[in-house]
């Protein structure tokens, strides 16, 4: 078909959180300052010069949000299968093994019980470092089980997303994680538990088009890219002129898609206040 426009829920190498990957991960894209890891830790990986929010690994995020020692991981043993025996330039199994070694994670989402500001909740956090935070069967299943546990315990679910989209190496099964996680949220609703969705940079494609957008309250970090299709693909396929803040949290707020943009330093008390709002005891 002539003039085909490519549309996808898939992660694209082009949409990496820190641009083209040539920049050192601790070099600030906002002000070009460079930091050592230990310099960024006390600021929760926010640039002290310009306020740029660097990506946060899942375990670090949990340490930032949860009360110390309260996170009890579940489903840590879940691993991705290779339903299609997928092989492009390399085998999917090989990519998975490499990601596990590089990140120390079983897949792109960690979940478990936690408390935040002394309020119990279920906490699910994504890690972009694991294959671009892409959602395959394991991410979908772990998210769905987190919904179940929240419903079972009658506590809110807090989820921090960071994802390039669906994991194309699992083919159609990765697309099916959209309706799957949507159904899980519907069950959470039915259990009358709250779902607080925190969108960190980047939350795109299949994850934005499923559970991340279904939070009772949707919060974002400043400067986060929240887009179904990222700017590069939009530009390439439509040749449209993109606004400067295309797809960013600030643009999303202006268009009514997020309830609040909360700087990382304020995120924990903010979530604590929300948990108090949704607390059943109260």
């Amino acid at each position: 078909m002539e003039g085909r426009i490519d549309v996808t829920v898939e992660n694209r190498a082009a949409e990496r959180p820190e641009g083209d990957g040539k920049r050192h991960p601790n070099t600030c894209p906002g002000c070009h300052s460079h930091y050592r890891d230990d310099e960024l830790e006390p600021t929760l990986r926010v640039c002290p010069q310009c306020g740029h929010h660097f990506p946060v690994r899942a375990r670090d995020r949990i340490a930032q949000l949860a009360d110390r020692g309260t996170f009890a991981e579940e489903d840590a043993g879940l691993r991705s299968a290779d339903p299609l025996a997928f092989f492009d330039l390399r085998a999917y199994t090989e990519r998975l093994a490499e990601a596990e070694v590089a990140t120390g994670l079983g897949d792109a989402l960690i979940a478990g019980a936690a408390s935040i500001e002394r309020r119990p909740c279920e906490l699910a956090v994504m890690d972009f470092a694991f294959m671009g935070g892409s959602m395959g069967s394991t991410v979908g299943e772990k998210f769905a089980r987190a919904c179940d546990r929240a419903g079972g315990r009658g506590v809110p679910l807090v989820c921090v997303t960071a994802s390039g989209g669906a994991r194309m190496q699992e083919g159609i099964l990765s697309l099916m994680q959209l309706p799957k996680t949507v159904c899980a949220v519907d069950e959470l609703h039915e259990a009358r538990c709250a779902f607080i969705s925190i969108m960190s940079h980047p939350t795109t494609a299949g994850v934005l088009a499923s559970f991340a957008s279904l939070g009772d309250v949707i919060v974002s970090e400043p400067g986060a890219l929240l887009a179904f299709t990222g700017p590069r693909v939009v530009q390439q396929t439509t040749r449209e002129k993109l606004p400067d803040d295309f797809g960013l949290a600030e643009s999303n707020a202006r268009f009514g898609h997020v309830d609040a943009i909360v700087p990382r330093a304020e995120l924990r008390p903010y979530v604590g206040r929300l948990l108090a709002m949704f607390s059943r005891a109260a």
Partner: protein
Amino acid sequence: MTEGASTQAEQLRLRERLAKLRELPLLRGVGVSGEMARLKRQLERMAVEPSADDVWHSVELARHQDRPYTLDYVERICDDFVELHGDRALADDPAIVAGLGRMDGRTVVLVGHQKGRDIRERTHRNFGMTYPEGYRKAMRAFELADRHGFPVLTLVDTPGAYPGVTAEQHGQGGWIARCQLAMARLGVPSVACVIGEGGSGGAVAIALADRVLMQENAIYSVISPEGCAAILWRDAGEAKKAAAAFKPDAVHCLELGVVDGIVPEPEGGAHADHDGAAALLAESLGAALADVEPIAPDERRRLRRGKFRAMGMYLE
């Protein structure tokens, strides 16, 4: 084509294997159509892992310029159809058609993507690529169905949701999510059928149904072959290779438990015989609906969620 004992055994094994994968009746529509020859051909095709050529053939037929689109089926399947327009907020998205239809003496709500046949209509329909407004129109139709107890039928045929600036600004991702949620919540029965391209989020937005069918030569995929090739092979020209790798064809989708049945097409494909394709589609939709209608609404909703919750493969 020879049909020796070994092939027979293979077909039987396959049927058992498929039946195990999903506890749903298999090949709905095929049996109903009662054409033993077609059943055989399809089972044969399924018995053998579709080759890269078979998969690519599906991609080509799914996108064939003469393939029937939603309104082609509507005019053949429905005794009457009143189209509903607009999302009540901003626009009427021509890439999605929604309306009330009369089928087999009862009223259904029908929603489907709509591509255009000629250049002008293609542009008007935006090649079947929806804006958020289109999903809102669909959701309005779903609400109407629920209020009046009309079953919901959806026909999926889109390259994907439109990747444009305005679409993004209006919340493309969010409305794909909410449209799915609306389908998850439906009290009435629902059947979806992928009739051409089941392209990614834009497709699944209206495919969270009690039964999901797929036409023989339709495709259903997380990404277009070209897009996949561009990313993984760094060469959009490797689309055929990519398609063979991620297997968007109906047989593989059935085998993976993603669809509940395959709807047969006339000899040569749906584009060769619109009337024949519509008759086969109507049969399959009717049978699938009959299958889920007797279930109580709450239980049906529970089963629907359970079905999608079971999708995926992982190691524990």
